């Protein structure tokens, strides 16, 4: 059932509408799970996830033992015009929570979405990576007490669960606002901006079904994958470019790299010289790799999850 979560009139006879698809299972009194994406208009990986999840749930309605609310487009204007933020507002929607029902349009939208999701048994907020770096599908947790969330994240068929230090700017995200209100919420980071990687997204959908099973909301078939690595961030090595130029990768995204292995080179297209070679300082999983070649000093090139010693 398609329901309207928020609506606001636009000047030229159109409304901005945030919709959700409420899929109700055989046992209506079961848990309610929310799956949210489309926060940024230039990040599309979550679109395939919500399509595929809705399709799979509709296929086996008898196996759903609760309610799944799917929110594919929190920023519909941005999605339709490939703008990261909300067009005309110059604002990152995921820095406006908890919002304000009496505030400007974006604040009112944020408040309505938060209010609608609050009270769910769990929520998943899916983000694509940006246009610069490709990410392996990973769960990110920025909360002071991550235990429950790590338990849920471990079901999701992700390679990595990254528990990060809570930081003040992340206090304005939807995930933080929901966690603060007692709705366990995880963030998923995956893919690369506007590209829709169906294979990776399909594995995440399998993971969501396992998460539903874990929360006693799904009795259908699931696929069991190896448990993810849980990192507290101390074993995440961030590699930056120290020179400007063109970054050419020399390692494969998602591969295991050796200590000293070349991740890529930064070249000078004018002089025909190599200005900088980025090497991995350790053995580990190359879970983020730059895709946009132009780099500045300080541009993110790669992240490696160090193999435990």
């Amino acid at each position, binding site marked *: 059932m398609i329901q309207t979560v928020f609506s*606001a*009139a*636009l*000047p*030229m*006879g159109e409304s*901005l509408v945030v919709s959700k698809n409420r899929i109700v299972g055989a046992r209506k009194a079961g848990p309610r799970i929310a799956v949210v994406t489309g926060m940024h208009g230039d990040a599309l990986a979550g679109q395939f996830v919500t399509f595929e999840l809705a399709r799979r749930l509709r296929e086996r309605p008898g196996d759903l033992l609760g309610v799944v609310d799917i929110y594919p487009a929190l920023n519909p204007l941005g999605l339709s015009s490939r703008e*990261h933020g909300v067009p*005309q*507002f*110059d*604002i990152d929607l995921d*820095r406006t929570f908890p919002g304000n029902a*009496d*505030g*400007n*349009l974006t604040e*009112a939208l944020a408040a309505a979405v938060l209010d609608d999701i609050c009270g769910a048994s769990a929520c998943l907020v899916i983000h694509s990576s*940006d246009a*610069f770096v490709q990410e392996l599908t990973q769960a990110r947790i920025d909360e002071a007490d991550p235990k429950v969330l790590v338990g849920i994240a471990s079901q999701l068929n992700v390679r990595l669960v990254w528990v990060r230090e809570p930081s*003040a*700017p*992340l*206090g*304005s995200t939807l995930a933080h606002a929901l966690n603060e209100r007692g709705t366990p919420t995880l963030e998923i980071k995956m893919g690369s901006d506007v590209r829709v990687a169906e294979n990776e997204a399909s594995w995440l959908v399998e993971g969501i079904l396992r998460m539903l099973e874990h929360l006693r909301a799904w009795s259908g078939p699931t696929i069991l994958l190896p448990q993810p690595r849980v990192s507290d961030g101390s074993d995440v090595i961030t590699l*930056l470019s120290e*020179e*400007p*130029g*063109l970054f050419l990768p020399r390692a494969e995204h998602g591969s295991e790299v050796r200590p000293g292995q070349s991740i890529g080179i930064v070249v000078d*297209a004018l002089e025909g010289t190599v200005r900088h070679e980025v090497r991995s300082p350790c053995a580990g999983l190359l879970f983020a790799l730059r895709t946009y070649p*132009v*780099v*500045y*000093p*300080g*541009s*993110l090139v790669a992240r490696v999850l160090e193999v435990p010693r």
Partner: protein
Amino acid sequence: MRRGIIYQMNIPHRESLSIRGFEFGCEGGEHSCAIIGSLRGNEVQQAFVCATLVSLLERVERSGGIVDNKSILVVPCANPLSMNVRERFWPGDRADINRSFPGDEHGRSTERIAAALMRVARLFTYGIQLCSFNQPGDFLPHVRITRHGHISDESLGYAEEFALPYAVCREPTPFDTTTLNYVWQQCGTHAFSLYSRATDRIDTGSAKVVSDAVLRFLVARGVIRLGDGNDIGIGEAERTRLLCEADLVDVRTRRSAGFFVPAVGVGDRVRRGQRLGAVLSTGDARLLETLTTPDAGRVFFMRTDPLIQQHMVALRIAP
């Protein structure tokens, strides 16, 4: 006046980024006041105000008007790379320098810039940032202080020395904690954000209001003297009214969207219940909503975009 380079960075396909600073007064003396202009590529008015201040302070210095042992630093533009291509954010990864403080000299590009600025700016007793607003609108020039414990309480006491009509105190959100203003206060600097009426265009009238306010503040804080051989005229001082952001009264579109047609101007005094504007249908110019003020006061902010959505603040009234 001494010109210096605060930070340089090599840039792909372009000349190096150079952030320039202009120093006045005693070299090696007390670090009295730092003034920082545009951090974003569209903050033209903010760079213009700073450039004007560089010119004025040069005249003050030539006439011996900088008080002994005091020094002033002006950085008109900390993001010339974006300004030259008129992009608001950092061209490399669209990051916002004013969300990258306190920065990290070994971190991402904008963090390196923020760290370099902070390394210098944190030395000063007073910090003034020329800021822009993220909504298309016109407002009365004013000074803002973000609340941050004891130091912001003291800063509020100094705010009236700018002699602008309003000083607005604002509670920080989590998102504000990585701004220059907030981090400046963490470092012990009294930080003030000055808002002029324009951003991506030059408004000479409000630029003068703001540059005069900075000079007044520097006089009041004992950093410069005016009138000793320099003929710099500063406009009439206004009595400052202190407001909390929550005191401002929002007049918003409650049920409609369309053409926004204002009936008042920024700075106008308005009566309780007065009609301030209207929302008209974009199809047949039919009246959809009349915007009235629930309180008497002065128009502090008015939206300038002629199209308005539902749930939008069209005007703000300072009661």
